[in-house]
């Protein structure tokens, strides 16, 4: 039992090396992409927004899943509680990384252009909401709420590790109830502000939940990949059993279907209504070269993971599940590309080298921060009230041998 309370750093010494290598990769990527900033500022900001939304999606998705688990319980969450916490603690870095978007908003969002607004009646009506000061105030509020939730949940969890005080679990549950509500509202408005207002005339009321579903899926895919990696090293190699992967696979399947449901609902409603202001968003996506991206999403964001994750065997086989998880993270990026890039290149499909380099750069930096946060604490919440019931039996008897099916 003593080894379970060691920090991740002590249990897996190679983490420090990975963190350093990722940070170097992130530094090199940042230097290369800064060169891109001098060539084409707008393209840089556009690719940056896409990469940023993916990393933010994993961070906030983990925060939200952590809160869901506080309320629902279950063995699936106990084994990923620490990666969830470490991902949520990357939020301060994500807050800093928002600055390029705040500084570059004049080049990203058409509604910041006073000349354009002066000649557009619709935009004049929307000016009450879509104006620079209010945009920045709202962003500050979102980050305040997210950082606050992450700070208190993580601080109480640390205290729980030290003191094993049972009242802390109750307190975390209470905060999570309200926190989920706050997350739902803030992310809805944040997605309206940062993504939907790229085309200020267009609106879709389902957009917020579409982003929420995407963030949940990104976070689950990342956590699954992280758990597969951790489950091959002590101490989790004695604890993680196929049933844990099965649960995560089922959750991924549910989120894949949820994303497809939201995306299709948005399409069906706009297609049925066929109103000029709404349908234009789809017209310049589906009647140009962007159509290929849409088909890619249908095939690889829905069909392929859906079919693979239906199989019980695939969900219990970590080697296969990790491939599905990494594939899902890649299509999540393509989905954000689909939401963002066509607004900047309305005539046809265009992929910049920055669309590849910036996600890799921000991804490396994010992962390095994640590992840094993971290293400082034990890999299992041993004083969680649910710990004994969820994992006690496995620890007592040793993980059963991986049975062949």
């Amino acid at each position: 039992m003593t080894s379970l309370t060691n920090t991740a750093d002590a249990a897996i010494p190679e983490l420090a090396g990975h963190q350093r290598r990722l940070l170097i990769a992130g530094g090199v990527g940042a230097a290369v992409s800064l060169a891109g900033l001098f060539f084409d500022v707008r393209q840089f900001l556009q690719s940056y927004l896409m990469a940023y939304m993916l990393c933010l999606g994993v961070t906030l998705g983990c925060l939200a899943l952590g809160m869901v688990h506080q309320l629902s319980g279950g063995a699936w969450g106990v084994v990923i509680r620490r990666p969830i916490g470490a991902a949520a603690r990357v939020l301060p870095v994500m807050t800093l990384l928002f600055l390029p978007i705040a500084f570059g908003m004049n080049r990203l969002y058409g509604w910041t252009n006073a000349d354009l607004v002066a000649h557009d009646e619709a935009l004049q009506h929307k000016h009450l909401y879509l104006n620079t000061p209010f945009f920045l105030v709202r962003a500050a509020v979102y980050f305040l709420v997210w950082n606050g939730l992450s700070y208190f949940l993580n601080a109480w969890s640390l205290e729980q590790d030290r003191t094993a005080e049972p009242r802390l679990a109750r307190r975390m549950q209470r905060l999570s109830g309200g926190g989920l509500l706050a997350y739902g509202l803030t992310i809805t408005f944040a997605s309206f502000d940062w993504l939907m207002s790229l085309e200020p005339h267009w609106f879709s009321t389902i957009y917020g939940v579409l982003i929420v579903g995407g963030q949940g899926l990104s976070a689950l895919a990342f956590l699954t990949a992280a758990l597969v990696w951790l489950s091959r090293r002590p101490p989790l190699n004695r604890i993680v059993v196929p049933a844990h992967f099965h649960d995560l696979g089922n959750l991924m399947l549910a989120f894949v279907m949820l994303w497809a449901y939201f995306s299709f609902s948005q399409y069906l409603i706009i297609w049925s209504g066929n109103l000029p202001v709404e349908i234009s968003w789809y017209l310049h996506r589906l009647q140009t070269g962007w159509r290929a991206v849409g088909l890619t999403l249908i095939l690889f964001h829905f069909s392929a993971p859906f079919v693979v994750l239906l199989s019980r065997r695939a969900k219990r086989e970590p080697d296969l599940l990790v491939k599905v998880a990494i594939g899902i993270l890649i299509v999540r990026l393509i989905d954000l590309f689909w939401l963002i890039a066509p607004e900047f290149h309305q005539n046809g499909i265009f992929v910049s080298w920055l669309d590849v380099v910036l996600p890799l750069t921000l991804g490396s930096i994010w992962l390095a921060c994640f590992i840094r946060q993971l290293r400082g604490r034990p890999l299992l919440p041993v004083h969680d009230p649910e710990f004994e019931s969820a994992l006690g039996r496995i620890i007592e008897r040793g993980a059963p041998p991986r049975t062949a099916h």
Partner: protein
Amino acid sequence: MKGPSPLYGLMAEFDDVSSLVLAAERAYGEGYRCLDAYSPFPIEQLHEALGSHHTRLPLIVLIGGLCGCLGGYALQYWSSALAYPLNIGGKPLHSWPAFIPVTFECTILAAALSAVLGMLALNGLPMPYHPVFNVPRFALASRNRFFLCIEAIDPKFDVEATRRFLETLNPREVNTVAD
């Protein structure tokens, strides 16, 4: 082959979940294959302890779902494009986006029905008579007792040896089950 045996098997009774799971694992490890466990509520680990035998139910559900999917779509195509062609909002007669929700619902309906009916067909329910009911204490299987039954058709089954084996698992008691 043996002649018809009046014996269905031997059944051990346990007090709690972990004894039953442990017993099932031990019996499976000992080489017994024709065995079944009975408990008042579903126990996830039992499935593997009994040597998770594959069922054909997932395949039945998949086929049912596909039939529902194709059937639902075909019904809409036939009614909107062939039987009653109506111009609605200038949209094509074969407007696939409008067909998706009903297609989806038909998929779920057919898959769910084939899951229930397939389950009943495969496990033989409803079954008014089963030999385990011959043990009076078996009534407790729906309350607070857990049972493991090794059936006489198992190649390794031997009344004396199997009884001795079951006694080593610390059961409350071991009963013979008449066929």
